[in-house]
């Protein structure tokens, strides 16, 4: 299976795609043979999802060709691709929970007899279809909403097969599955292979990529780094391909050992719906970097500390005193600030002025404490200090650049004199100049004694800024790395390529 067979099912040549002038895919080649599992791996933002959307008709490529079953195709949309025989199983299922399995499988192309839906025939066909992929326990007339996640996934696959799919794309198929369910999926994938169906398998988890795939294509920054036979490679090599880039940017000096103060925030076995058994200490004066993949619990951690979706288990102490951070307000009163990763959705009030945006938190929580004039004067000073360029204080914030918006958000929090700052992707979508200004500011805050927790998907930034790095995976701490760790070490922990150190 490791030799690419002579007649590929799908061939991509030089696929390119840009969004608003940003190149997300550039000259990507890839092919899938019938009965082959071809895995696609890469960091967040490497271009995997975009590539899959192009294959399944969601996007039209700017350049390159898609050849499917021997003919060059231009899909006009997902339905067009489905009719041609390409199915996609998303992480989020597209099922109608109130309908039966059979109704979902044949949704939109129900078998018809004498002008009416042939229910009997539909059930029979669904049962046969399920049996053909080894599913004999799943009743075709069960309501989908009552099924478990793994069974719903089977329904999704049956849905694609009912349309005679010859190529199936699976996007992070195990993300929602429990461990024992993953085994079932393995069996299913193998049976699909036996039927000669080609599979494009996108996953962050290297273990299953090695278990299932025949070949692996590594994407990085929208380009194909390499395609390797799974049998001839190791997890280490793969990780190196995924990250291999040179460190070039400048970052401010790290904290000297004597600058690190006492433990300010201490989490013991803390957990909630998205986190479990998190043990973590955050010290005054340090920048603690949080690494991990999207959905690994990084943001959930910050949001739990800030009281947005609070911890439900475990203990939290702040300066050695137990605290319950139930809401953003309690967290703010305890001296915690949170700069969200979704600046547009929950970081700014777009149509209000720069000044109103910067005053938002002080008005809401500490209105009684300080005089109005003094507060406004202080916020104006802060806005000047963070150097917002080319904008007056009374300009609507939505007309500012991302970098300037972020600085206004920072000013909002600095006005509260926070002792703990949680940054979630503080420089995402920000130009280079503003980026290094924010880096300097983050470091200056730590130097002045604040405890800083910084989440970043940008590995050079994470490595360049952090005094320590904690890597999250699947809602818990996968491991901790000291300053000077390499990108490979972070990624290896994040994808689970190394055995995690016993805590």
């Amino acid at each position, binding site marked *: 299976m490791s030799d690419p067979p002579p007649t590929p099912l799908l061939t991509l040549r030089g696929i390119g795609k840009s969004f608003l002038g940003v190149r997300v895919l550039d000259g990507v080649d890839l092919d899938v043979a019938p009965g082959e599992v071809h895995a696609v791996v890469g960091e967040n933002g490497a271009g995997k999802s975009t590539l899959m959307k192009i294959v399944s008709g969601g996007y039209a490529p700017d350049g390159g060709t898609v050849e499917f079953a021997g003919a060059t195709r231009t899909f006009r949309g997902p339905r067009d691709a489905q009719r041609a025989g390409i199915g996609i199983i998303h992480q989020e299922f597209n099922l109608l929970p109130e309908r039966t399995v059979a109704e979902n499988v044949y949704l939109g192309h129900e078998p018809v007899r004498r002008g009416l839906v042939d229910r009997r025939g539909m059930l029979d066909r669904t049962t046969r279809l399920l049996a053909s992929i080894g599913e004999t326990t799943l009743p075709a007339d069960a309501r989908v909403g009552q099924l478990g996640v793994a069974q719903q996934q089977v329904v999704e696959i049956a849905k694609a097969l009912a349309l005679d799919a010859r190529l199936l794309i699976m996007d992070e198929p195990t993300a929602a599955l429990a461990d024992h369910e993953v085994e079932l999926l393995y069996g299913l994938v193998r049976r699909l292979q036996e039927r000669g169906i080609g599979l494009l398998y996108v996953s962050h988890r290297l273990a299953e990529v090695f278990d299932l795939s025949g070949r692996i294509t590594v994407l990085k920054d929208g380009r194909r780094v390499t395609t390797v036979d799974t049998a001839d490679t190791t997890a280490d090599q793969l990780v190196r391909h995924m990250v291999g880039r040179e460190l070039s940017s400048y970052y401010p000096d790290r904290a000297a050992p004597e600058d690190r103060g006492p433990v300010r925030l201490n989490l013991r076995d803390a957990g909630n719906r998205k986190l479990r058994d998190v043990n973590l200490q955050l010290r005054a004066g340090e920048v603690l970097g949080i690494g991990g993949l999207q959905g690994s619990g990084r943001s959930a951690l910050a949001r739990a500390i*800030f009281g*947005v979706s609070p911890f439900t288990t475990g203990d939290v102490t702040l300066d050695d005193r137990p605290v319950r951070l139930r809401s*953003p*307000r309690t967290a*703010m009163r305890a001296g915690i600030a*949170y700069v*969200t990763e979704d600046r547009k*959705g*929950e*970081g*700014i*009030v*777009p*149509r*209000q002025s720069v000044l*109103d945006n910067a*005053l*938002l*938190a002080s*008005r*809401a*929580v500490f*209105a009684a404490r300080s005089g*109005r004039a003094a507060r406004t004067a202080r916020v104006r000073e802060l806005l000047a200090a963070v150097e917002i360029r080319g904008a007056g204080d009374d300009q609507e914030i939505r007309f500012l650049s991302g970098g300037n918006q972020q600085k206004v958000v920072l000013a*909002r929090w600095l006005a509260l004199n926070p002792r703990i700052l949680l940054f979630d992707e503080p420089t995402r979508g920000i130009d280079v100049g503003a980026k290094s200004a924010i880096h300097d500011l983050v470091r200056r805050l730590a130097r002045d004694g604040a405890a800083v927790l910084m989440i970043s998907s940008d590995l050079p930034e994470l490595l360049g800024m952090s005094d320590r790095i904690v890597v999250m995976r699947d809602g818990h701490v996968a491991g901790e790395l000291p300053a000077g760790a390499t990108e490979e070490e972070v990624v290896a922990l994040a994808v689970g390529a190394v055995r995690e150190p016993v805590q």
Partner: protein
Amino acid sequence: MQTVQPRSLPLRLPRVRPGGVLPILAILAVLLVLVGIRQPDFLAPQSLMSFLGRSAPIILLAAGQYFVIVSGEFDLSVGSLVTAQVVVAARLIDSDPARTWPVVLLLLAFGALVGLVNGLITTRLRVPSFITTLGMFLILVGAVYLWSDGAPKGGLSEEFRRFGRRAFEDVPVLGRVPYALLVLVVLAVAAVLLMRSDFGRTLVAVGDNPRTAELSGVRVWRTRTFAFILSGLAAAVAAILLGGYSGVSFQAGAGLEFGAITAVVLGGVALGGGRGAVVGAMLGALTLELLFALMNFYGVSGALRSTVQGGIILLAVAVSATRSSSR
């Protein structure tokens, strides 16, 4: 004040700041010119003062509605609340002057309570405000009929009625200044000051992006509930003025909620919240009243009022939507 004004209007509109009061001022000016051409007497101080006094209730309701709309919600209950207040006042006062002030206080408390209930149902039970206040509208209509056995009972005292119908006589230059106008000016100034306060700025921020506000420590539910209370209070004051002016009937407040919403939208306030000035909303109400007066002067049937309101709402929302999406 010549007809140059309307011609320069289309050129200026795109450049003014969205949510500002310039467009509504321009429309108001155009209408004043048209009124002046048709009925110059109307612009004499005497009749202008009386017009402003008559318009005070709808202007106050527009201000109340503004607080709710700018925070991202709706209040459809104010019309029936006004009716309920007037009917309740008549029955409780029962033409006894000594009961005037207690009943006035009671009406204010009743207005605030209805607002509180609207607010709590909307924010805590997460019922969309459109539905909450529609339900409240129906409940109040039914309750008033039930309570008064189908016909208004009792009567308002002369004391009570003076807010709506009396005036300061012989004021230099202006002539007769209705009490209602004084009430309006005082409350309008209070509303403007409130919108400049921390609460006011926070209210608009909540309407603009409740997620951000929540994550910045704003208690969004309290802020919005307070907006509903303000709307209920505005309805109480409007009811006191209206009852005085036009007396007791089951029609006292009919349709006022739509008038108020039209006025707010006309005043450049974005439906869905986050943009617009309370002054704009109040000017919107004044403009709407002036438009109705103008229709009257030109002999247009009064039956067209609601059609005109509907047209204005659609047009104003369409204009603001296309203007904001073209950015």
